């Protein structure tokens, strides 16, 4: 059965010693990276302060395709997708996701390498029905798209 569980190179036998192995294998934390986590934006408790932490007020740009569900089955996991048409908006270097009504609206920032696609998929927590923002930085300017996602009570209500 071992070959069947070789997912992404992690066999069962390797998994058994995985935790110990990790501390040795992964010693390349943030310090050696050239970019930095925008701490002010992450610490912000309101959408305006969070945007200020990213560098200002973005303008709406149609080259940003921001996909979120209109209605989410559960706020704990809301799938999002951000795609930028690089012909219409070139040189995108950063992509950010913000959730307006979360205690800390800043959810994630992605630094995009110069010669790659601008395409990000992830899942975020959405505390209540509100607007989600996709903000991108290109040539030092900020652009955005926003979408409302409804968060519903799916179960027995208790």
């Amino acid at each position: 059965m071992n070959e069947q569980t070789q997912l992404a190179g992690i066999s069962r036998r390797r998994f058994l010693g995985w935790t110990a192995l990790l501390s040795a294998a992964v010693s390349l934390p943030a310090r050696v990276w050239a970019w930095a986590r925008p701490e002010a934006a992450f610490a912000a408790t309101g959408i305006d302060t969070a945007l200020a932490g990213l560098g200002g007020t973005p303008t709406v740009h149609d080259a940003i395709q921001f996909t979120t569900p209109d209605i989410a089955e559960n706020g704990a996991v809301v799938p999002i997708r951000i795609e930028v048409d690089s012909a219409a908006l070139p040189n995108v270097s950063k992509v950010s996701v913000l959730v307006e009504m979360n205690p800390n609206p800043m959810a994630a920032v992605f630094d995009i390498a110069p010669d790659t696609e601008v395409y990000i998929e992830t899942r975020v927590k959405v505390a209540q029905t509100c607007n989600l923002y996709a903000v991108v930085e290109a040539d030092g300017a900020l652009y955005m798209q926003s979408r409302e996602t409804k968060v519903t009570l799916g179960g027995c209500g208790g």
Partner: protein
Amino acid sequence: MIKKWAWLIGILAMPALSDDGIFDEYRDLMGDDNPAIFVIDEGEALWFEPQGPRSASLEGCDLGLGRGVTAGAYARFPRYFEDTDTVMDIESRLLHCMQQLQGRDRDTLLAKPYSLRGDMGTELEALVTWLAAESEGAVIAPEQVHPAERAMYALGEEVFFYRAGPHDFSCATCHEQSDMRIRLQALPNLTEHQDAAETFGSWPAYRISEGLVRTMGWRLQDCFRQQRWPGLKLGSEVSVALQTYMAVNAAGGVMTAPGLKR
């Protein structure tokens, strides 16, 4: 058998119970990736790990198909075991093996069988998840041969319709009609084969609301909590009886667990 890319190619799909398609877009975006894949690995590792005073693994555990046979075993539960002279669900059978083979203490094992808020999973949850994955694609075929197995079905049916508590709720209150929902949650009609098969076959399941895999034993406990009933004991006659009722109604369906649910 665990399929290498099962988490990416749609085998762990959401159930298609009726909720008027309101979450189709959400589920489309979610895709088929199911974090239960991690829990399957964890359960498999735990099965082979020597534990307890006897430093034994669970490889000698008889889940009904012979010692150490895991493939397809989940799909045959609940079933009668001669060595205990009772009908057992998979969770109580695993606890039995942990006591008998590994020499572990029952009260300690029962202290926290299911995850609480903030946990990433328990040993029992992981083992059940792996064993369910070992029955993926298997036909649901609970034993109904021994008189005790048939009696369990009858008891399960009786309890299913039993109304009690301050809200007068029974299992049937929510689960004897088709195409109904509570809030936006589709409710399976567990008296009917199709819904019973889809439901029984998709537990244990990763619950995205909790970030955890939950088992059928937990599911029943939580139903009774919401029914305003007292606490259901793991492996109790009522728990095993209701699982038998569902499994027999589901018989002939296919195991798809671990599922992915809200």
